């Protein structure tokens, strides 16, 4: 049992410390249903939702970086009412608790979104996303708007560059928990169009910057902290926990290797301790099961249980079909 918001009337409690970050996993996780066992995740966080519907940005939206990617989507989403209509039933029956990410556009819109969610069943909590330049006052007004219109546990996701000040403002205004941090923005040249494109930057090299911010925020936080930024392995995730995070959010590795989300969750949830010794690699690389190699793997009959066997999964057999 991991508390993600300060204990009180309505804490947000999850069973596994691993979840996707907002924007990575769609509005309900259904896009990854064949690749990720959602019952193994601590929660799912939806894509950002606003009061009014928004369309995708114009121009290049996805630009490669060295070991990473710049993404400028423009927060496309159907608006809160249609989102609830489209996804509400699935949220209510989700195998993992659903945290709805609201983009904090204006306090008035946040208020409207929060009261819409308040009337909606089966939502575990709200995560409020701030824009990069949000001032402490703006943070406070948005948080008050959410708290005054909903009893749902409230997480606030702070920008990387102002993580400490924003986290302080957020917890002072009543945030139940903090997500550290939203990825930074950058500008890069899109070689296809020749244009300079601005957007959020992602990659494994983001981890040191985020990890430092988590350490700093954990130092002043009076509420639980969720670490996020560049996590690409279970070891990465553990570094955030060691730095003081109660849980972690996984970002773009979900796009490149969706099953890592489940691998990291199983790993941090201690789930690997229960697996049968000699289990095939694909139990640990979920989704890799239905390949042509499987027939060949099955010739490696699992050895008899051995209590001294190492608990790390065996490597994939290296043989190939002729």
């Amino acid at each position, binding site marked *: 049992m991991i508390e993600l918001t300060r204990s009180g009337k309505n804490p947000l409690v999850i069973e596994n410390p691993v979840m996707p970050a907002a*924007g*990575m*996993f*769609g509005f309900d996780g259904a*896009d*990854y249903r*064949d*690749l990720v066992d959602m019952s193994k995740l601590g929660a799912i966080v939806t*894509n950002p939702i606003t009061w009014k519907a928004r*369309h*995708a940005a114009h121009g*290049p*939206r*996805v*630009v*490669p*970086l060295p*070991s*990473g*990617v710049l*993404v400028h*989507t423009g927060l*496309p*989403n*159907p608006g809160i009412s249609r989102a609830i209509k489209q996804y509400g039933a699935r949220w209510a029956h989700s195998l993992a608790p659903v945290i709805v990410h609201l983009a904090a556009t204006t306090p008035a819109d946040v208020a409207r979104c929060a009261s819409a969610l308040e009337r909606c069943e089966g939502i575990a909590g709200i995560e409020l996303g701030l824009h990069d330049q949000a001032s402490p006052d703006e943070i406070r007004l948005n948080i008050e708007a959410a708290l005054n219109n909903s009893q749902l546990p409230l997480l606030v996701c702070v920008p990387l560059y102002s993580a400490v000040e924003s986290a302080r403002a957020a917890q002072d205004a009543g945030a139940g928990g903090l997500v550290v941090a939203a990825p930074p923005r950058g500008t890069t040249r899109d070689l*296809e*169009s020749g244009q300079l494109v601005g957007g959020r930057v992602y*990659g494994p090299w983001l981890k040191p910057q985020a990890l430092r911010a988590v350490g700093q925020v954990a130092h002043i936080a009076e509420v639980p902290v969720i670490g996020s930024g560049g996590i690409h392995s279970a070891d990465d995730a553990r570094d955030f926990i060691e730095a003081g995070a109660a849980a972690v959010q996984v970002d*773009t590795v*979900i*796009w*490149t*290797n*969706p*099953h890592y989300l489940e691998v990291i969750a199983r790993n941090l949830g201690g789930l690997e301790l229960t697996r049968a010794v000699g289990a095939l690699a694909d139990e640990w690389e979920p*989704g*890799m099961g*239905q*390949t*042509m*190699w499987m027939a060949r793997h099955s010739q490696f009959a699992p050895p008899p249980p051995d209590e001294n066997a190492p608990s790390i999964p065996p490597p994939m057999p290296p043989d*190939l*079909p002729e």
Partner: protein
Amino acid sequence: MKHTQALIERVRRVSDHLQHLDLAVDRVLMQIKPGQSLFVTPQEPAAGSPYLREQWIPVELFPGRITVEIPARRVYAPGQILSVMAPVGSPIPIRSGIQRLLLIVEGVYPTPLMLLARQLMSGGVAVTLVLGGQATEYPLELLSPEIEILRSDTGWKWPEQMDTLNWADQVLVLAAANRQMEVYRHLYDVLRQLRPHDLPDHLVSGLFYPRLACGAGACQACEVPSNKDTLLACSDGPAIDLKKVQF
């Protein structure tokens, strides 16, 4: 969508700019339909391998094997193992009873339409392919000899344009990203004028291949502007009925 592995069995340079890779694949991938593609990353990436997966488009299917056509500039070798997510996208919707298919390709190679053309022709459908701009540089020997080929000019006109547009009972258009909306809108306008009272569903579709982030429908970065529902190139596309597109 499934996550599987594929083995590169053969690499053939088919032109200065293109190579064909024969991939040994899992049975589940044999269900792939024209329009659907593979989302690929090397199992052991080399330096400079892109961070995100790439969209690879099948041009021929065999039992247990798929041939894809990709740019020649990145080096692959037989024996390499790929991590593959597939299928990406929806099959290109084909109108029932179709007899005459018109394909229009402008400024890019016609690769994404080759599998469809091959399959429909083997079912007796007549296919005409209009190539314009860079599309005319596509190596003709890769095209089936039964395809009728026309060339469009810089004003996107080709010989007997109205006749071919009237003749076709389905039209698919593929254009380079930088002029895509312009080309699709132009063609849509022409067709609406030709059939002012009756533009059936799927009569004319455009193909969309933006760079994909998730390829799964999750990130919404590949949204195609639409007047009604959200349309995603990676899951609703690549072929989108131009009636639904907001120009």
